[in-house]
């Protein structure tokens, strides 16, 4: 028995739900969370995107310096962004299939910020309605 925790983009929620149904797993729990990933240590990586955002205009109140600080904080990974945390209970043999489905539904062309999938062991589960426990309690 495994618990799959996936932190994904808000906009990919429905795509993920569809992918899960296609993979044969309908049950899940979702929570709104905020998250961030690794810090960008190489400033040249965000240079291009930063130029693009700065060329859109300067914040009237803070001036150039403030705008640049704001834009940098958006790009270098120090800011938290809204994400959706999916929690799915699964049988051991279904885990690769589910992880594959989530990964395929969430991959974007940006190459960053698509989230992570964790697979954790679960000792026991109990279905409230029937009281059955163990593997039988999953779907």
């Amino acid at each position, binding site marked *: 028995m495994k618990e799959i925790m996936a932190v994904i983009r808000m906009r990919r929620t429905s795509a993920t739900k569809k992918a899960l149904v296609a993979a044969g797993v309908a049950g899940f729990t979702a929570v*709104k*969370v905020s*998250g961030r990933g690794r810090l960008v240590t190489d400033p040249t990586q965000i240079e291009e995107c930063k130029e693009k955002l700065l060329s859109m205009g300067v914040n009237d109140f803070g001036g150039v310096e403030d705008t640049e600080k704001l834009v940098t904080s958006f790009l270098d990974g120090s800011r938290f962004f809204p994400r959706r945390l999916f929690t799915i209970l699964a049988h051991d043999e279904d885990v690769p299939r589910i992880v594959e489905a*989530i990964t395929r539904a969430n*991959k*974007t062309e940006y*190459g960053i*910020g698509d*989230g*992570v999938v964790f697979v954790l062991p679960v000792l026991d589960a109990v279905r409230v309605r029937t009281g059955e426990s163990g593997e039988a309690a999953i779907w």
Partner: protein
Amino acid sequence: MLLIRAIVRPEKKDDVLEELSSAGFNAATMVDVVGRGKQKGIKIGGMVYDEIPKILILVAIQDADKDKVIKTILKTAKTGNEGTFGDGKIFVSPIEEVYTISKGIQEL
């Protein structure tokens, strides 16, 4: 690999996250939660508040970094020198596999 779940006071959230980031653990997920502890909530006047707002911080780390991360959280999440009731808890659970979606690889 380990998943650290730390429940901290909302006002300590920024300190904890900043300190974690400067210790080299920038990646984190946070959830707004409510909960109570051993003290069964707070009693103010005749009213018992047992859904006290807290922040749940999730951090995935390598096994070797466990002590460092826990020490960082303990140091920053504590109120005063001795600590106070309601400062929170840290749970550590094992992670079997990690997949980074954007890179399509099986690692943190």
